[in-house]
């Protein structure tokens, strides 16, 4: 799918950017310069061969671009000093890992909105070009370029520095980073709108970044949990839709299409993590995904265990979406009427008023309870509410099946 050169460039991108920011003290201009160096490398290396030291090649080219940029902008603030600083020697490789982590924290700065955090992370840490990011999010390139440039401006005006957050903020900042990676994954896995069910490039990138983060902070249980959750969910990708784009629900999927390597890796990660560190929501969701993935058939699924995990998840992070999932598990353990009773507790919840999943789950449980007319109405209502074309088709077909 991707060439070895592209893989190498993406791996090196945050390291080179980190080194350049350290030398220049300028994030915004360095980020542009590294992007230009990456584009130049992608053009030259396939033709002329990969240089012996790719990292220093990129750093040299990016430094030169940055110097040119700063020189050409007359009356630019502290111009002379910056150019002088640029001539300082590169710091040792030992900091490359820390720099990547620092960059992730910077791109997921709390002053930015999630769409800006996503875009900036993919560009500065992921090494994707603006055009690639624009394509993945289905927006024009100029729009994405503007979003990234405004994000960088905002980071600057928030007074952020290129340094690890203080220990007291680290936990909260890491939570934001994980949420950004989770959103990148979700954007790829279930496109929130549009006609294509998954955009594999974004899920692959999210997994790559989560894997990288896990290597940087192996002691963080939630990082391992998120990586496991992504692997265990993405493992079902090939089975979750047909060639025509129809959704295949979990219990009807051909399990031989699931990716067993990813399942093994995800389960191994969880085994290493669970019980050794404080349990968090990503580990719990990964544990639930693992139970699904390890069942040889849908009928073998250990629903009582899944229900128990949802009960813990609801205590750790209460939300109507978790309650909705718990209702499904209860229905599988105690029957559809028990599930419907739990759904009833969500009816007045403003946060679910525009969420089609509540109605879709209700439709499903009503169908299982034999209330076919009510089920059909709920499927139709859910179909009207969703903004996803594959989901709308799936729900409309379920309604038509009951007509």
């Amino acid at each position, binding site marked *: 799918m991707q060439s070895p050169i592209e893989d190498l460039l993406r791996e090196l991108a945050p390291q080179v950017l980190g080194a350049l920011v350290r030398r220049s003290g300028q994030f915004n201009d360095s980020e542009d310069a590294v992007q230009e160096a990456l584009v130049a490398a992608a053009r030259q290396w396939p033709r002329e061969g990969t240089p012996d030291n790719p990292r220093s090649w990129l750093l040299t080219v990016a430094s030169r671009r940055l110097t040119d940029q700063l020189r050409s902008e007359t009356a630019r603030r502290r111009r002379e000093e910056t150019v002088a600083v640029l001539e300082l020697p590169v710091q040792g490789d030992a900091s490359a890992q820390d720099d990547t982590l620092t960059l992730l924290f910077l791109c997921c700065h709390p002053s930015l909105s999630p769409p800006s955090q996503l875009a900036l992370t993919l560009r500065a840490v992921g090494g994707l070009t603006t055009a690639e990011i624009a394509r993945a999010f289905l927006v024009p390139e100029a729009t994405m370029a503007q979003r990234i440039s405004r994000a960088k401006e905002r980071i600057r005006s928030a007074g952020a520095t290129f340094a690890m957050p203080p220990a007291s903020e680290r936990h909260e900042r890491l939570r934001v980073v994980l949420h950004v990676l989770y959103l990148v994954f979700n954007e790829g896995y279930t496109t929130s709108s549009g006609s294509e069910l998954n955009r594999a490039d974004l899920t692959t990138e999210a997994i790559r970044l989560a894997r990288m983060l896990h290597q940087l902070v192996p002691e963080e249980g939630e990082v391992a949990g998120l990586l496991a959750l992504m692997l265990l969910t993405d493992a079902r990708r090939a089975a979750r839709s047909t060639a*025509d784009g129809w959704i295949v629900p979990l219990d009807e999927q051909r399990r031989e299409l699931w990716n067993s390597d990813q399942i093994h890796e995800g389960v191994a990660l969880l085994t290493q993590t669970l019980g050794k560190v404080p349990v968090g929501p990503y580990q719990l969701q990964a544990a639930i995904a693992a139970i699904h993935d390890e069942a040889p058939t849908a009928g073998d699924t250990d629903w009582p265990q899944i229900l128990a995990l949802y009960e813990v998840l609801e205590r750790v992070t209460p939300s109507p979406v978790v309650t909705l999932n718990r209702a499904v598990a209860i229905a599988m353990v105690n029957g559809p009427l028990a599930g419907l009773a739990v759904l009833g507790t969500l009816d007045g919840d403003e946060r679910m008023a525009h969420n089609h999943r509540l109605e879709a789950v209700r439709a499903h449980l009503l169908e299982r309870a034999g209330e076919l007319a009510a089920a059909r109405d709920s499927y139709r209502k859910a179909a*009207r509410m*969703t903004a996803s*074309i594959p989901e709308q088709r799936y729900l409309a077909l379920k309604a*038509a099946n009951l007509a």
Partner: protein
Amino acid sequence: MKYMIMTFGSAEAGLAAMGREWMLEMVQFMLKLDKDLRGSGELVDEHGLADGSQAKTVRFQNGIPVPTDGPFAESKESLVGYWIVDVENEERAIEIASRIVAFVKNPIEVRRVMDAPPDF
């Protein structure tokens, strides 16, 4: 020249009237149309819109913008989706629209997108 080809309807009526077979055929039809328009290099953009029941209309009332539920048009039918195509001439845009009308049986609006160079 660019044309916007717009379909109107309501999910409520559609969901009640259409059976399983029609739905399956409709998806096949849309996939084929998409493939053909991409293949011919005429497709600029296309989007389905979430149902009109989810829409909001913002009106200027008593000197301030006021959002209300529902689409702008008073009728039950509202914009369902659109294609923007870049085609040789109006005949070709109408040909594409006709192909859709023959299948969905609902009227389709074909509008020129204003992108002509100035006359001077």
